[in-house]
């Protein structure tokens, strides 16, 4: 039987659901990361599948469990950063056959199934539950947390992997076509008008700046802070390959992609995998690392009325998301030690944290807040992971950071201006994402 997507019932998408019934009963323990790379080098040793296996094995080892204790596996099967494997492109059968393949030769190269992983990790002899949380790590975490809470698995691996190939982001396929379908031409995606990926966020940011009297240059402290935190993240792309601090001058001089979104407002696509080991709180307490308890997960499923969300729609959704996050965890914004909301695109991080009401913030306040001390040493840390801007497009640095901070092993990136007790992470989009509340204690 092939692995299925999680049913909609796994996601807590509405307000009014009360405290999550499994609050404090599910914990993250182990963490495993692969190295990062800008793109796949074509070798069988460095495929996305290889990275996945490495990350999973590291998470198991980090948690101090034996592989036969693992009984669950939740992953995101979609691994593309925007790189296309066009129909007709030759498939490297030497790479395919280097592993134990499934029926799909691109499995483990440009997509990923639980079946491929189990074929290539023979030590996982006891996995009886598999499920997909499709979208990004934020989805997979929610699915795994719910599955462990529901008793479908008690020691579960959670994985997100990314592949990146030669060629520029989203420039092949339909972008290079002479003719396109009528639905695509007037749809909400790239369309024949040519919006880049950051177009929608740029629009919303432009409206935000007009409404509140803000400007793009006010993002500079946030960007420098994110890169600084990223350079303190040894698992990250910039720390591993290009340890360059981003200055305000660099940021303000960057070329536009879709003004007011510049190059650095976009995250850099990379190859990388990360895995976590989740367990029931009961099992977690005997493992090698300190358990980090999940107090709640919440999801947003906002829809725009037409082509692109307006600022009003964004703010209605992020406000609702904040209320769902706190309601299910039984906490308030005042309980947050720090936030690790998503940032890839940088220009929407403020929507997330204003929706939370982080540090008493109201709509329109965030860019002024960025001009204050938002460092990991201060009392109001913003995105201590550095996020995608600090470490490349993985959509999971913020989760890893929450777990590491609350375990007391974030190293040089440790928050020191606050005691790390409760944190929130998640994303991706302000109109649609999945969010998790982490805690050093179960209640």
């Amino acid at each position, binding site marked *: 039987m092939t692995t299925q997507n999680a049913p909609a019932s796994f996601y807590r998408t509405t307000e009014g659901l009360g405290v999550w019934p499994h609050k404090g009963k599910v914990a993250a323990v182990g963490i495993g990361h692969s190295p990062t790379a800008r793109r796949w080098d074509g070798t069988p040793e460095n495929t996305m599948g290889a990275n996945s296996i490495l990350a999973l094995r590291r998470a198991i080892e980090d948690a101090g469990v034996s592989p036969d204790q693992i009984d669950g596996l939740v992953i995101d099967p979609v691994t593309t950063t925007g790189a296309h494997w066009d129909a007709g492109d030759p498939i490297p059968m030497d790479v395919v056959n280097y592993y134990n393949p499934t029926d799909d030769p691109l499995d483990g190269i440009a997509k990923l199934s639980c079946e491929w992983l189990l074929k290539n990790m023979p030590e996982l002899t006891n996995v009886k539950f598999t499920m997909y949380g499709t979208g990004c790590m934020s989805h997979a975490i929610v699915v795994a947390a719910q599955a462990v809470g529901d008793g479908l698995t008690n020691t579960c691996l959670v994985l997100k992997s990314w592949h990146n190939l030669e060629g520029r982001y989203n420039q092949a396929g339909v972008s290079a076509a002479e003719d396109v379908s009528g639905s695509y031409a007037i749809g909400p995606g790239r369309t024949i008008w*040519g*919006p880049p990926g950051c177009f929608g966020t740029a629009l919303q940011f432009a409206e935000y700046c007009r409404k509140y009297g803000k400007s793009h240059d006010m993002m500079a402290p946030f960007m420098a802070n994110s890169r600084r935190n990223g350079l303190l993240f040894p698992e990250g792309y910039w720390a591993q390959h290009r340890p360059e601090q981003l200055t305000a001058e660099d940021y303000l001089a960057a070329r536009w992609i879709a003004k007011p979104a510049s190059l650095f407002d976009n995250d850099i696509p990379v190859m990388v995998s990360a895995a976590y080991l989740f367990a029931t709180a009961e099992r977690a307490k005997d493992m090698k690392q300190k358990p980090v308890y999940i107090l709640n997960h919440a999801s947003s499923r906002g829809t725009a009325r037409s082509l692109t969300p307006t600022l009003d729609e964004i703010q209605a959704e992020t406000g609702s998301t904040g209320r769902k996050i706190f309601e299910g965890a039984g906490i308030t914004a005042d309980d947050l030690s720090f936030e690790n909301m998503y940032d890839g695109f940088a220009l929407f991080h403020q929507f997330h944290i204003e929706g939370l009401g982080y540090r008493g913030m109201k709509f329109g306040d965030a860019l002024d807040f960025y001009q204050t001390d938002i460092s990991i040493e201060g009392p109001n840390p913003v995105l201590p992971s550095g996020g995608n801007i600090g470490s490349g497009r993985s959509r999971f640095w913020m989760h890893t950071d929450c777990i590491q901070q609350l375990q007391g092993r974030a190293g040089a990136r440790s928050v020191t201006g606050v005691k790390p007790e409760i944190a929130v992470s998640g994303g991706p989009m302000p109109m649609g994402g999945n969010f998790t509340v982490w805690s050093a204690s179960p209640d």
Partner: protein
Amino acid sequence: MVKQGVIPDDLTKPFWEAANEERLVIQNCTACNRLQHPPVATCRQCGSGDNLEWKGMSGRAKIYNYTVVYDTPIRMLQDNQPFNLAVVMLDEDPGIQMYSHLPGTPVDEVPVGASVEVIFEATANGQKVPEWRVAG
């Protein structure tokens, strides 16, 4: 600025046929009396596909917002960068948005809130597409 050619599909064929006749039509649910765009197979409010029609629009709108595109993924547009990419909202229902390159408006000199009128431009394969020009 010539856009990619368009091949109408079943869902959008009436929109494109109207465009070739230089008429702007938008999907409307007669049960909900509610416009929706982009078109989909069912009403996004009541969920029914039985009451959808294509309703003629006046062709008047306001510029809601815009960006200036310097790095489009669409190959056919890359020689024309930078270009305006605006979102207009129809006068009949400001909740309904359409994209526009705002032909005739200088790059980054977009009058947000200004009135615009629909025009029709030929794409690469001759199919006409609605575009918008600042009125008056």
